[in-house]
Every structure is written in C-alpha cells, then in structure tokens.
C-alpha cells in the first residue's frame, strides 16, 4: 500500500466566504484562526496578569478598571491566568497557529493530512475557550484551585466553594486536550507522510522537528491526565472516591498523574518556540545551523527525558523521599540536550553576518532570556535546593523566563518573520525594533525582581505579602515588577498598531524578502490553495547559506543541482 491520502478539497477557490474564511479546511486559514483565537485569549490572560500584578504591588488600593479584589477572587484569577496562558495562548499560538501554518508548507505538502480533522480541532478549541470563559461567570465563581488543580482542594467543592466553575474548567481542559489530540495526530502524520520528494527526515527544517517532537510528547503524556480528569469529574459529580482521602483516595496520585503530563507539557510549548528561533537565526545570520543533527538528536533526547522527570515538581509533596535523587538526576540531565541546543544556536552566530531585523532581535532576545530560564531550572531540579525554592516566587520567575521567551519572543520573531508570507505585506521594521527593546527591558524588569522575592522566601499565590512580617521588606520589589508589567503592556501598543496597519497598508512584500531557503519562501505571497502548483522536489538541507563560490548567499532547498552548477560556472 503505497498510497498517502491526498487532500481532496482542491476546489477551495470556488467556495463562498463562509467555507473559505470561517469553516475553512485550509491549513493556512486554520493557522491564522488559531493565532487570532490565542490572541483573544491572551487579552484575558494579560488582563488577569494585570490584576494580579496590581494587587501584589498595591494591595490596599482597588484595581483600576476592575475594582477591589478579595482573596478568593485573587485565587480564581491566578488559576485563570495559568490555565489561559498555558493551554489557551501558548499551545494554540505555537502549535495550532505556527504549526498549522508552517508544517505543510515546510514539508512541501498541499495541506494537512486530514484537513477536516484539522478544522474540527480548531473548532473544538474554540468551544473549549468559550466553556472556559463561561466558567468565569459561574454562580459561585470560577475555578480557584490553581492551574494544577491539586486535589482535594479541587475535588471537594466545600473547600473552595466553587461548584460549576471547577466542573466547567475540567470540561474546558478536556475539550482542549481533545482538540490537540486531533491536531497532534495531524501534525505527526503530515510531517511524516506528506513530505515532498527528496525531503528526507534529515532535511526537515528544525521547526518541523520540534513540532513533531512536541506533538508526540503531548500525545503520549496527556493520557494519564485525561484519566485523572475523568476521575476528578466523577469525584465531583458522582461521589466516587478516587481522590477523597477520607475514603481511601490518595491526593498524591493526582499529583503524579498531573505532572506526568505537566512536565512534558513544558516542552510541548518550549520546543516549537525554540524551533521558530532556530528558523529565524540562520536566515539573518546568513550561516547554516551549527550542528543540525546534534540539535535533532538533542530534541528527541529531551522529548524522551521529559517523561521521566515529572516528580521533581513533587520533591516536597510528601512522596517517598527515596524517589527524589533518581528524579533529580534525570531532571538535571535534561539540561544536557538543552545545553547542546543552546550552544549550537550560539555557535551558529560565530563568524556569521547578522542583520538585526525585528525578527532576529526577538529570536536573539528570546534565546538570551531562555538561557536564564534554563539555568534557574537547575535550582529547582536539584532535590536539596528545591526544598528552599519550591513553591516560591523563584518558581514563578523561572517558568515565566522559560515560557514567556518561547511563547512571546519566539512568537513575535515568527510573526515578524512570516508576516510577509501570511499577508503579502511586510511589517514595519523600526516599530518592530522599538517593540523588541521595550518588551525586552520590561520583561526582565518584571521577573528579575521576582527571582529575588522568591529567594527572600515568599510563597506563590499569596494574595498579600504583608500578612507575613518576614516578607514585608520585599514589597518594593513587587512594585518594581508591577511598574514594569504596566510598561510591558504599553510596549505592545506599537506592535498592535503595526500589525493591523501592516496588514492593510504595509509595504507589499516580494516572494522571498529575507532570501530564505525553506520551501514556503518559494511560493507567492499571499499563498494559494493548494499550496504547491507543482509538487516541489527537495535537493538539500534547509540552511545552506553563504555556500562558498556561489553568486548568491542562499541556496533554496528546491533549487536543482544543475542550476547551481550553472550559476557557479557562470561566476
């Protein structure tokens, strides 16, 4: 059986507006839909961050634009912020958005392997987002047990007073998982089955490798959490006793099942973001990626290792103390593949010829911040220092230093970079650079103080620092962080204006404005459906920049060798 299923909806150009832009099965439209949805959810996530920051800096005053905030509401907002940002912004943006848009283009396919499943995945995500938003208006308030929903706090409604809100939260998460199950299946099959001729695995752009790894890691880790979510919902609604300590249930089972998914989930988000940086860097450095294969193998190794590190979230959870050292070893070992990836990225810059475009700045800035996020992880991965750092603001600062650079810096790098391919127009570079420098400044201004708050011993999810004498001196740090957070929000204004202005008024972009090699740049901007009028044929690796003795400093993947030889000879 040598038949791959070809997408059979080639008659896209005859479809009406609704089929074309709303219920579309075109991966490019779905990718943009995902991005739009995650941008809308990012407004909720960002607004909740604003409330949290304001409350922490000036607990006495009421939050402008929201009003006074009580401790139960604070917990709910913290929960929403985490859930929204991880599941409804980072994942749909990096996987749903960029993954959908880029994977078929980069592997040389006309669409995803299952276009209708793809559309269904997006609409499921939409419903999930709606359910989550609805949960915020539940009669007793939204879920308030943290994004980790530790039992029995989330299990027995009497502990938080939240009934429907928590159930809807579980439902929204379940729908979100279902959506990404469909999406992940699609990503992997597309990238493995629909590759253009000549596109061997070792010629795939690294972004595709990262997306495949992320999708596989997600698919293989989400099962236990789905099981746990079912158990939790049954506990709440049918009175089962899976997690009820008074009836023999064990809260640690939830923690194990949650983190079995929860830790790999970090890599599900991180890898695509790093993948975007890896795509952007060689283009603007005009240099091949240093050690392509090392990066591929490290990615796979990191993906595998991510399954056996979960208990480092639970060193002080009361689990068997003998488990700590094995998990500490595996956890800290995961720094090795990431060290290889990061060193390779840095080595790529060595003796390159860098053009600091907005996209490149975001990629470099993202890498620089991600390094700090990575190294601070060692403090949490070591069983001993985790006793001190666990559950403090150090953790908050650490994971924001990993998630923010990959999601936002990586995402912005991708947007500035692929915008011409998405909309046929370029974004304004100057305002892009302003956006970068302001975002970078304020981002560091938020979270470096929070590292210190954590080292000072402040627990997370604290409504008010002043309830502890020992934490009162740390209050000014929270004020700095909040001022910077307000700055970070303000820094997005140039971006938003630039984005919408460039969509309609931006400079019309040529086919390949950055002189990049990968397949999507061989196509007209904006793109058509099906993607490739002529099935592409791939002859070489994706990052052949500045090859000696060529007249041009780039060498597209689909340029036939005969043409290359001719060009060399002519020179």
């Amino acid at each position, binding site marked *: 059986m*040598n038949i791959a299923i070809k997408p059979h909806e080639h008659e896209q150009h005859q479809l009406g507006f609704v089929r074309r832009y709303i219920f579309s099965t075109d991966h490019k439209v779905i990718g943009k839909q995902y991005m739009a949805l995650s941008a809308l959810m990012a407004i909720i996530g960002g607004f909740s961050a604003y409330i949290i920051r304001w409350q922490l800096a000036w607990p006495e005053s009421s939050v402008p634009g929201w009003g006074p905030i009580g401790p139960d509401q604070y917990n709910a907002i913290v929960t929403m912020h985490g859930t929204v940002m991880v599941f409804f912004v980072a994942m749909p943006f990096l996987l749903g958005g960029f993954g959908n848009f880029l994977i078929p283009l980069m592997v040389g396919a006309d669409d995803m392997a299952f276009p209708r499943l793809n559309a269904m995945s997006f609409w499921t995500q939409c419903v999930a987002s709606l359910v989550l938003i609805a949960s915020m208006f539940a009669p007793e308030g939204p879920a308030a047990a943290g994004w980790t929903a530790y039992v029995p706090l989330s299990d027995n409604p009497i502990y938080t007073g939240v009934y429907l809100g928590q159930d809807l939260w579980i439902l929204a998460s379940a729908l979100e998982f279902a959506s990404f199950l469909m999406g992940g299946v699609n990503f992997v099959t597309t990238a493995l*089955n629909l*590759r253009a001729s000549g*596109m061997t695995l070792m010629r795939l752009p690294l972004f595709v490798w990262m997306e495949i790894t992320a999708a596989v890691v997600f698919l293989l880790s989400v099962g*236990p959490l*789905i099981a746990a979510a079912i158990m939790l919902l049954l506990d709440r609604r049918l*009175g089962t*006793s899976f997690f009820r300590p008074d*009836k023999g249930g064990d809260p640690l089972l939830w923690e194990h*099942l949650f983190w079995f998914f929860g830790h790999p989930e970090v890599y599900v988000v991180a890898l695509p973001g790093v993948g975007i940086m890896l795509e952007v860097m060689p283009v603007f450095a005009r240099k091949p990626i240093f050690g392509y294969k090392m990066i591929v193998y490290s990615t796979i190794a990191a993906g595998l290792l991510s399954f056996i590190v979960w208990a480092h979230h639970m060193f002080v959870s009361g689990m068997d103390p003998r488990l700590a050292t094995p998990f500490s070893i595996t956890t800290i070992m995961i720094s090795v593949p990431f060290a290889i990836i990061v060193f390779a990225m840095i080595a790529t810059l060595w003796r390159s010829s860098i053009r600091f475009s907005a996209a490149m700045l975001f990629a470099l800035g993202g890498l620089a911040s991600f390094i700090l996020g990575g190294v601070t992880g060692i403090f949490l991965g070591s069983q001993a220092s985790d006793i001190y750092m666990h559950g403090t603001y150090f953790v908050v600062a650490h994971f924001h230093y990993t998630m923010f650079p990959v999601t936002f810096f990586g995402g912005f790098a991708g947007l500035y970079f692929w915008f011409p391919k998405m909309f046929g127009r370029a974004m304004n570079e100057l305002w892009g650079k302003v956006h970068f420098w302001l975002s970078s400044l304020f981002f560091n201004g938020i979270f470096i103080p929070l590292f210190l708050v954590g080292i000072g011993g402040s627990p997370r999810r604290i409504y008010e620092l002043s309830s502890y004498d020992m934490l009162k001196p740390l209050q000014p740090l929270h004020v700095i962080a909040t001022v910077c957070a307000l700055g970070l929000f303000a820094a997005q204004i140039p971006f938003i204006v630039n984005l919408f202005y460039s969509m309609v008024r931006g400079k019309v972009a040529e086919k390949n404005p950055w002189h990049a090699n990968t397949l999507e740049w061989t196509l007209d901007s904006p793109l058509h459906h099906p993607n490739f009028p002529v099935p592409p044929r791939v002859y070489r690796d994706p990052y052949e920049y500045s090859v000696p003795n060529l007249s041009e400093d780039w060498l597209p993947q689909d340029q036939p060798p005969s043409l290359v030889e001719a060009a060399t000879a002519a020179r």
Partner: protein
Amino acid sequence: MAAGAQSVSAIAETDHLREIPAGKMAVWIFLASEILVFGGLITGFVLYQFAHGGFAADAAHVKWRFGAFNTLVLVTSSMTMIMALASARADDRRRVRTYLFLTILLGCLFLGVKGFEYRGEFREGFYPSSGMFWSFYFGMTGLHAMHMMGGIVINLMLLIAATRNVSSEFLQRRIEYGGLYWHFVDVVWIFLFPLLYLT
C-alpha cells in the same frame, strides 16, 4: 507488484515512513495516547488495590459470569470485524455488510449485558459512590462502554458506506481503521475483565 518497482527510486532517496498510509498512522497515534488514558486508570486501580490490601470483599459482588460472557461476545465481535475486512479485501460487499452488522449487534449485546449488570448492582445497593472498588469499577467499565458506543457509531457509518457505491479501496481502508479501534477496545476489555472480575 508494479507499485514496488516504481517506489524503489523514491525509497532510495528518502525512507520507508511515507509508505505507511496516513490514516493508519493517525489511528495508531491516537491509540497510543488511548493506551495511557486507560493506563492511568489501571495504574490507579492496581496501586490502590495493593495499598488497601485488596478489594476482594467488594469484588466478590460483581458477577464474573456476566463478565466472562461479555468477553466472549467482544472477542467474537473482533473476529467478525476482521472478517469484514477480509471480505472487503475480497470485494464481497454482501459479506462485508453481514459481518459489520454482526459486529454492531455483538457490540450492542455487550452493552446490553453491561447495562443489565449495572442494574443488578444498583439493586444490590452498589453505586459509584459506594467505595473505592466501585469507583473504579464504574469508572473503568463506564469509560470502556463509552468507547464501545463510539465504536458502534463508527461501525454504523462503515455499514452505511458499505451499502453505498464507494470504491473498494476506500472501504477497505476505512474498515481497517475502524477495525483497529474496535480491536483496541477489545484489548482493553481483555485486561479489564480479569482486573475487575477475577482478582
């Protein structure tokens, strides 16, 4: 094997992965994550069982004869499902329909027996809230039953496709993929049965 000679050159410069039909790969990836959904529940059940020193007292109330009968039903339905695929390969539409119909019937029989069993347990006063064993019993069999219902719907769709004028290749492929799922649900039950009824 005309396709073979044709694909030699393609394989030479790429790899074998592309030969796996996309649909088959997708179903297997989906099943891979399903393994861990049931895996999570089974992990919880087995570990709790050890921690509580066994659920023997509660487990004595489930009727293993029903479970055994249902295992027989499900195993047989797996056989009829694969026979439907074999018939599809032979392009014998009549037998495809017969076997698919039998599979659906057996699936419904399984659910019927399960429902009857549930009714008996409710009458004896055992509910999902009656303790840890019953939490798992109803949770796991309930989730399995929901998978069965999904499988029955898929098989109904296949049956409808088999009555329509679809290409033989299309039907074969769809029955194969539907079958993979159906057999997976069967495999899950093969483990759930001894877990819940026999230990």
